[in-house]
């Protein structure tokens, strides 16, 4: 880096202002939460994509991450808990040119919405799904969830969670997703690149972003500041694009393996298949 100093200007404007809903900021996110960064990266990836912003929809379920859709100045939908994905299927197939992006949390997508996400991946629904995994239910005060690791202390796991968490990338790969990547909120360049690749993908593209949640996760697990969680990610992540997804389960003392694990181009999407059915039906008499 050069010694040249940047000129700092006081301004209340942000370069992405036109993509945020006027009057919706300040947001509800806690100090140290990574959702602001992730929102920023998502908006950048959308505006750099080939899609006209008019054709982009952002859909969320319920939860902290579930609030993101409502801050964005695209057609945005804040649905019921766990149901962002089937809502998005209806939204997506009614216009094949539309890009539907689901952004929601690990509890929303993999606990209450678990049945929907596995089927959407199985049938390669034409959706980009971003799961911000903060290892707990933040909005409701820090309960354990389907990603909590053994030993993790949460309000409903005061003696430490005992259950095995989901290995999310492996689950998504096994179910048939066309694109699967995992990054941490610290890997901003990689996260944005993954969002861009996922948005460009035809079919079910999935990005897991490990987020920082100091308030309801970190505080109970010796990571009480957002910075500490990001430092933890920096010290404990291993980049391995070629990792066998069977080995990427996150436990308390295991390294966190990040990378792009699946990137397929040859699978027809649900929308492709529905259009094919239309052609077959039309050809018959």
């Amino acid at each position, binding site marked *: 880096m050069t010694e040249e100093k940047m000129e700092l200007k006081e301004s209340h404007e942000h370069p992405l202002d036109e993509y945020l809903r006027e009057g919706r900021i300040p947001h509800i996110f806690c100090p140290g939460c990574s959702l602001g960064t992730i929102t920023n990266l998502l908006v950048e990836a959308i505006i750099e994509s080939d899609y006209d912003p008019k054709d982009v929809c952002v859909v969320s379920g319920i939860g902290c991450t579930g609030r993101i859709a*409502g801050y964005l100045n695209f057609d945005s939908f804040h*649905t019921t808990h766990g*149901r962002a*994905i*089937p809502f998005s299927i209806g*939204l*997506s197939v*009614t216009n094949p040119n539309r890009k539907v992006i689901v952004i929601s949390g690990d509890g929303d997508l993999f606990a209450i919405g678990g049945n929907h996400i596995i089927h959407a991946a199985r049938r390669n629904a034409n959706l980009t799904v971003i799961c911000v995994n903060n290892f707990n239910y933040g909005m409701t005060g820090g309960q354990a969830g389907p990603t909590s690791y053994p030993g993790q202390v949460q309000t409903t796991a005061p003696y430490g969670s005992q259950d095995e968490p989901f290995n999310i990338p492996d689950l998504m790969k096994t179910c048939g997703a066309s694109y699967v990547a995992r990054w941490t909120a610290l890997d901003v360049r990689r996260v944005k690149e993954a969002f861009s690749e996922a948005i460009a993908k035809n079919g079910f593209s999935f990005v897991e972003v490990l987020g920082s949640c100091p308030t309801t996760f970190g505080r109970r697990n010796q990571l009480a500041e957002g910075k500490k969680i990001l430092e933890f990610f920096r010290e404990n992540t291993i980049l391995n694009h070629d990792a066998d997804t069977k080995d990427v389960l996150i436990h308390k003392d295991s390294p966190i393996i990040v990378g792009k694990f699946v990137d397929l181009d040859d699978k027809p999407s649900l929308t492709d298949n529905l259009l094919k059915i*239309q052609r077959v039906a039309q050809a018959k008499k």
Partner: protein
Amino acid sequence: MMSKKESKFPEIDTGEYFTTGNHAAAEGALSAGCKFFGGYPITPSSEIAEHMSFRLPQVKGHFVQFEDEIASIIGIIGASWGGAKSMTATSGPGYSLMVENIGLGMMTETPCVIINVQRGGPSTGLPTLVGQQDIMQTKWGSHGDFEPIVLCPNSVQECYNLTIEAFNYAEQYRVPVTLLMDETLGHMSEKLVIPDESKVKRIDRKKPTVPPEEYLPYKADEDMIPPMAVAGEGYKVMVTGLTHDERGYPVLNAETQEKLVRRINDKIRLNKDKIIRVEEYKLDDAEIALIAFGSTARAAKGAVNKARKKGIKVGLLRLVTIWPFPDEMIAKLAKNVKKIYIPEINYGQVTREVQRAVQGKTKVEGLFLLGGAMHTPEQIVEEIEKGL
């Protein structure tokens, strides 16, 4: 979009048929312009999904079989915001799974249609046999205050006609509308006439007339119904199940809640005279009235004729819409008759509403069967004679 008519297959398949209520309802949806069906198999409604899977691709629509009924209802809400008229069909257990998102449809004012082909309940109950036990569930099933519109056909022809009406109400008032059929109607065959295209009345949702920068998605017109922009039209719609202001932004306070929830109820309550449909049969000189709905109304009509042959002056008020409930009509009827009987295949759901509406002005008696069998006209006449 995909609703352009480039297909050699007609949306409105004009002709005369001998077919089932389930097929008639599916054809009614197509005639109304339905372009998306999301569903999950369940007896006794599955033939609706099957027929839609066959017919929708012919008319450039989409049929998606989802993983459960929760996905089906939210899928049709998503499709409606995608710009398509949309529908699902189910029976009691599936409807139970759908009710949370019917509430989302009410709160976000999303036009869509749900068909419930009723079977005996509670729980798995009688999958293959008739019931009329979901009357109250359609009214109160989802949490919070809302005013549902529920239609109740009594013939194969009406399964067709009222499915079109259900779409028209859904589009006009921006609400999920339920068509309450029953197993008897779904599976019985009789004559269906699908009229010429020019005779089918279709209503489409009101669209915004202002440019996007002036558009407030939840600012209602004088009729209390906001114009509806959907995804991809440049209006950047914002849709949430949270209490929201005219911009669609979540505002969580009593004032916003009061304004929004009052309006989404009042748009139905204050228009109920335009919505409510009944059929009166030989009520003019009746001393005893039957109130009935769905397939049971057919037995009730038979009972009226049989009773009159015996010199008992009986008439029938058939509820074509169950909700909103025709309180005033029934209150008026109560002044003119000595007694009202309500044959229904449940343990007193409509009877309770009738009791509320008559306010003690006349005697009310429910004739209950708890599912699995139909009333016969003779049974009803026998009960009337006992009460003379």
